[in-house]
């Protein structure tokens, strides 16, 4: 599949007085994809989204939509629509009139029958067919959210922008809505750009995730890429969990980097592209990549002592310590939990990892 670019940020910086909300953003958004901006509160996600919508203008750089530079173009002239954080539904209009609002702004005017048909279809899509005449305040939070969604998609925007649309919903509803939103996006084929601080939400719904950190893009990639090949410590830490181990590069083994950790521990690590072949490196080792065997078992390994054991249902989490490694977290599926009884706190175990389990990160 050829990725066609529907929108683009080119070297975009946004300042609010002395505050730099976004800096040097470079990003291409592809036609039909589900892209998320993910990051902690205040990292500039909303600002990025609002620059696409036209509510904020970039201080520097260009915003392109559909191949055209839209710097300075006001929101009402951009072919995108937004689902607002608190929905921002019009309280003086019923559900149908809220949904019809965008269609009613078209000039030349659309025929009444066309508007009615489109509104009915949009409400049907969000499963609110019977609610046309309802007042907004008679609707639950989840229903209001669907109205907001219908009000945006009815206009068939080139891009649908969603600013933390599920933040106000309770957990169960949020989960249902995530699935619904994703299938709606597939059905419509519209490009969705979502802002969220919820890692799980971003990973489960998105084709690609753009991780933001202090106004900058830390990494863009598919959820798998972000998990398997984080380009820096921030991403490795933000997506999932990881053990970080300071090591020294001692050589190469083909594609792999050979590194020596504390206490002479040897790692054969995958190397992110930017990692140098020598000097100090930070290794990232996912907890589930670590094998835990009883002390005295056959094979190699590093002897460590259990400091905590946490039962997680399907998994067991061990916190381990040795003279060389201060603190190592291992998560072991329960089915492969150590034969002959699970080691408790204070018990010595043998810990190992396969070649290529660790990832050498660029210093950042």
């Amino acid at each position, binding site marked *: 599949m050829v990725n066609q670019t529907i929108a683009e940020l080119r070297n975009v910086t946004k300042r609010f007085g002395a505050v730099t909300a976004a800096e040097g953003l470079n990003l291409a958004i592809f036609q039909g994809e589900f892209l998320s901006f993910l990051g902690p509160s205040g990292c500039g996600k909303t600002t990025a989204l609002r620059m696409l*919508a*036209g*509510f904020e203008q970039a201080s520097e750089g260009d915003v392109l939509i559909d191949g055209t530079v839209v710097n300075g173009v*006001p*929101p*009402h*002239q951009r072919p*995108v*629509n*937004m689902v*607002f954080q*608190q929905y*921002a*539904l*019009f*309280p*003086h*209009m*019923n559900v149908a*009139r809220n949904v019809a*609002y*965008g269609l009613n*702004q*078209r000039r030349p005017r659309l025929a009444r029958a066309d508007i009615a048909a489109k509104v009915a279809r949009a409400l049907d899509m969000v499963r609110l067919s019977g609610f046309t005449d309802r*007042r907004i305040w008679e609707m639950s939070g989840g229903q209001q959210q669907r109205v907001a969604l219908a*009000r945006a998609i009815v*206009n068939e925007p080139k891009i649908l922008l969603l600013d933390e649309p599920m933040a106000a919903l309770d957990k169960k509803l949020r989960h249902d809505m995530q699935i619904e939103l994703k299938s709606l996006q597939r059905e419509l084929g519209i490009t969705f750009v979502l802002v969220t601080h919820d890692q799980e939400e971003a990973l489960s719904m998105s084709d690609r995730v753009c991780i933001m950190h202090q106004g900058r893009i830390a990494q863009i990639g598919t959820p798998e890429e972000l998990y398997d090949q984080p380009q820096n410590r921030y991403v490795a830490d933000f997506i999932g969990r990881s053990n970080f181990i300071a090591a020294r590069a001692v050589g190469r083994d083909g594609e792999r980097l050979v590194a020596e950790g504390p206490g002479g521990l040897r790692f054969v690590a995958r190397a992110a592209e930017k990692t140098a072949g020598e000097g100090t490196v930070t290794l990232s080792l996912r907890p589930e990549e670590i094998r835990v065997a009883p002390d005295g078992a056959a094979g190699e390994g590093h002897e460590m002592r259990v400091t905590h054991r946490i039962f997680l249902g399907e998994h067991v989490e061990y916190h381990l310590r040795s003279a060389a490694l201060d603190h190592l977290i291992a998560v072991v599926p329960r089915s492969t939990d150590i034969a002959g009884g699970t080691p408790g706190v204070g018990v010595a175990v043998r810990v190992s990892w396969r070649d290529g389990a660790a990832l050498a990160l660029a210093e950042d």
Partner: protein
Amino acid sequence: MRPSLRTTLFLAPATAWLIAMLVLPLVVVVVFSFGERGAAGGYVPAFTFDNYFNLGARWAAFRNTLTLAPLGTVLCLLIAYPLAYFLAQKADPRWRTALLILVIVPFWTSILIRSYAWIQILGGNGLPRLIGELGFDRPRFINTPFAVMVGIVYGYLPLMVFPIYVALEKLDRRLLEASSDLGSPPWRTFLQVTLPLSLAGVATGSMLVFILLMGEFLIPQLLGGGKVFFVGNALVDLFLQSRNWPFGAAMAATLVLVMLVTVSLYLRSLRRLSGGRDDVALM
């Protein structure tokens, strides 16, 4: 205690207050309006409709009140809305409080003194003289309906500004963004979102100004110089000078009735605009 009894008890002070301050005086006025004037003035109990039949004699006062009060309300509204809009939506938040205080500053001086100031401005040695010296015909302002209207707008403007300001101030800006996002240019956003959602403020302000204007007597007295007479002036005359209380009471009762009808019609039409709230078909 049963809830209904408790409710009654809680409401008792308010009910007593309403009866003492509103219902009782009104009953007195209505009773007086069917009475007769005593030889030396005042009230003599009787039951006659004569006072009502004679209302025509004071028709001019009714006519002035019923044209200038609505007109004054509309003028106040037309000036107050943009002012309130500017204060609530456009003014720098740091200056907002200061600007709001400026709107009420005139209230710190008595309307009497402020009206005298207007007498100076609109009188022969004020604006007309200035205009004359610029080479135009000297106009006559003082003691005309125009002067009364100037005084009314000047005096009542803050009462209109505040309720509208409050309505516009609490208007959620995201609704304006949503409107813009959905393809509406700013002026249509104003007509379709801002205006309908501020109608409650418009209603409150208009009510306040209109009701108070219906009873106004000071401004017509000072700036209208006895030539532009309101019902209020007639009442002052009837109760304090000619001491024809029953006739004054009939006038007052009629005024209250007219006010009730006008206000309820007005509220009804506003409700149709915003309260049924669906078809705010201002477009």
